[in-house]
């Protein structure tokens, strides 16, 4: 490993190398950040990833298409349903399967609820990074409510394996509509409560405003997408500009920040929760009856070809590139993880900040290491 020796501008002292190692309470997974500091100021940053590399893409090449959905669950292990959706969309595009209406609506409802759950986890963990212990409990309470609903529908709190190629696995229980409406009531109040607790707090503002700024052009150049890009002022949301599934039927807002600092990235996510609630309200009132899956063979053999699909996961632009050679196992599956590209911009965001800000900036990008390392 290279040793960085730099003469500080004031004396001939060397910079101190501090290691926010793979085990650290606030690196959001196994992630190592080597920081060279001059007093309290950060001089250079070197991220080390790969601790969670499981070779998912290579495993996909030896599994049948319907078996790969479980692998995608475990990539971004917080936004499971969005990952499953991305893969299923790719295969459906390749095989030209038409997904029935009811399945589409169920998919959208569950994916948006998953987005709310993921952002609640971000909120709780971000409050904890800033030093407030209470937002964690408030955020996780809301998240538990959503996961209860998931358990009643899919059978599992986290790794659902519910969205399948051609539709969804099985129909929702009879009291689904009622439960979703009750859940939305709770969530509206929960989001407002969480907002009131942390967003306008003096100390939180002092710690996040003006910290870790990245401009819109630089963010786009680094490949940053999702709430982090929208916080820098670029209006880009795959659900609107490149719609997939039935998102073009819903009317919702896109929160866009202007400063590109940590507070904007945080508040964009809080507002996104409210917009997701709107989408679920519209979807649950329109949900039709019908089939919940197209007639798909058990062993899917798509035609030869390749396809690239973009979806909007809670972290950003999740892309799936699929090459099929006509057999029942894919030839190549490549996942374009949003956190991977967002994490590249960390070096840029940490220029001229304090060491205490490193934790907050890292938290505001909202990375999931399972997705970064695959």
């Amino acid at each position, binding site marked *: 490993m290279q040793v960085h020796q730099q003469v500080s501008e004031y004396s001939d002292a060397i910079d101190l190398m501090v290691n926010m190692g793979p085990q650290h309470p606030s690196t959001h997974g196994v992630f190592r950040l080597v920081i060279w500091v001059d007093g309290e100021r950060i001089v250079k940053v070197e991220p080390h990833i790969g601790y969670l590399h499981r070779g998912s893409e290579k495993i996909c090449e030896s599994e049948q298409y319907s078996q790969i959905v479980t692998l995608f669950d475990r990539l971004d292990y917080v936004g499971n349903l969005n990952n499953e959706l991305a893969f299923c969309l790719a295969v459906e595009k390749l095989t030209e399967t038409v997904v029935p209406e009811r399945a589409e609506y169920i998919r959208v409802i569950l994916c948006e609820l998953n987005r709310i759950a993921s952002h609640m986890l971000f909120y709780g963990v971000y409050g904890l990074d800033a030093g407030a212990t209470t937002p964690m409990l408030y955020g996780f309470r809301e998240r538990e409510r959503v996961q209860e609903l998931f358990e009643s529908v899919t059978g599992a709190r986290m790794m659902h394996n519910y969205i399948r190629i051609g539709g969804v696995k099985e129909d929702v229980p009879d009291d689904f509509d009622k439960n979703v409406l009750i859940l939305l009531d709770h969530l509206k109040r929960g989001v407002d409560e969480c907002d009131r607790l942390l967003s306008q707090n003096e*100390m939180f503002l*002092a710690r996040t405003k003006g910290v870790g700024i990245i401009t819109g052009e630089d963010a786009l150049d680094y490949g940053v997408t999702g709430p982090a890009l929208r916080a820098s002022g670029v209006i880009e*949301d795959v659900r609107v500009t490149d719609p997939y599934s039935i998102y073009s039927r819903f009317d919702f*807002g896109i929160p866009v920040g202007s400063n590109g600092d940590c507070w904007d990235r945080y508040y964009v996510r809080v507002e996104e929760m409210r917009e997701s609630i709107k989408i679920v309200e519209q979807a649950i009132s329109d949900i039709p009856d019908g089939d919940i899956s197209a007639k798909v063979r058990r062993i899917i053999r798509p035609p030869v070809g390749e396809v690239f699909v973009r979806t909007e996961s809670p972290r950003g632009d999740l892309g799936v590139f699929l090459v099929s050679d006509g057999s029942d196992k894919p030839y190549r599956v490549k996942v374009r993880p949003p956190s991977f590209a967002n994490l590249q911009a960390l070096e840029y965001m940490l220029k001229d900040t304090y060491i205490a800000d490193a934790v907050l900036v890292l938290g505001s990008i909202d990375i999931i290491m399972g997705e970064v390392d695959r």
Partner: protein
Amino acid sequence: MNMPEIVGLFFKASLLLFFILMVVLILTLAERKALARIQQRKGPNRVGFKGILQPFADALKLLTKEDILPASANKQIFWVAPLAVFLPGFLIWVTIPLAKEVVLANLDMGLFYITAISVLSVMGLLMAGWGSANKWAMIGGLRAAGQLISYEIPFIMAILAIGILAQSFNLKEIVDDQARWPFAIKQPLGLFIFLTAGLAELGRTPFDIHHAESEVVGGPFVEYSGAHWSVFYLAEYMNTFTIAVLTVLLFLGGWQSPVLPFSGTVQTVASLSWFLIKTALVIWVIFWIRGTYPRLRIDQLMSFGWKILVPASFINIFLTASVLYYALPHWVITVVSLGFLGATFYFIKKGSLAGNKQDTVTIINSSDIRAQLSNKAEV
């Protein structure tokens, strides 16, 4: 001093130590329960009836844990550091009166003694940070030293203002002076400064960055485990209790109460319980602040201390001294203090970024973008 006196003093000192340890144990449980209630959960409730025996379970666990010494640590400094943090905090208790006649040694220079001794614990933190042979510990220790030394100034100045108001440094006389009005009403600014500086001295949220879990992973205490860490833990809670007791003694009237018709021992017991109730209220406020607020960064903390608290404390002293010198009625201090406090809060609110709340994030409607896209496609 003859033998019986020494033995008597020794006995009283051990009683005091026992009392402090009991209070600390109760405080650990109280904090966990209070925080849990704020966070909408229950807190420890398994050990004993509703969790009463939890602190004993914690103490037993800590005492039976392995004491790890890092290989490259400086052995002497590492082992002595917890003691250096605990002792000054305990020595303060020699002169603190808990009720009318309950005090170990009522010194005439009581306040002066307290401030002089309490500064010594900073050295203990530095020893812990250096002796651990760990970069994070060193950073945390240096941060702690800077923070504690900076906040000593407003702390001492607030105490000094009380001394001026009461015309004495003797703690009993200060409490007796508050028979009519507690000093909090006469010096609200002083109360605010004392509590804030006290929180910073304790190293509690929102000023706990030097041993923050998510930042420096425990700061100077990171390499300690078992019995040695429990001494640090003890010291923190003991200091919390000290600050609360000092607030009550100096500002909230000590054991004075509106009506105390009893006399003799019953009066002592009643005044003691009244005193403990007031202390419990102050401690509850300290826990409440911990449960609600995030923490400040080290440079923001320092600038808050130097730029806001230090001038405020000087104004407090100046105001008190001039009111006493010109023999003005004491409510002048109250009025001017409240005015100053109001002005400070107003300027903090205005100068801070809470002014432009939601201006930075706007919500753009998707239908607008879709219209834009379809227009572009048609063109």
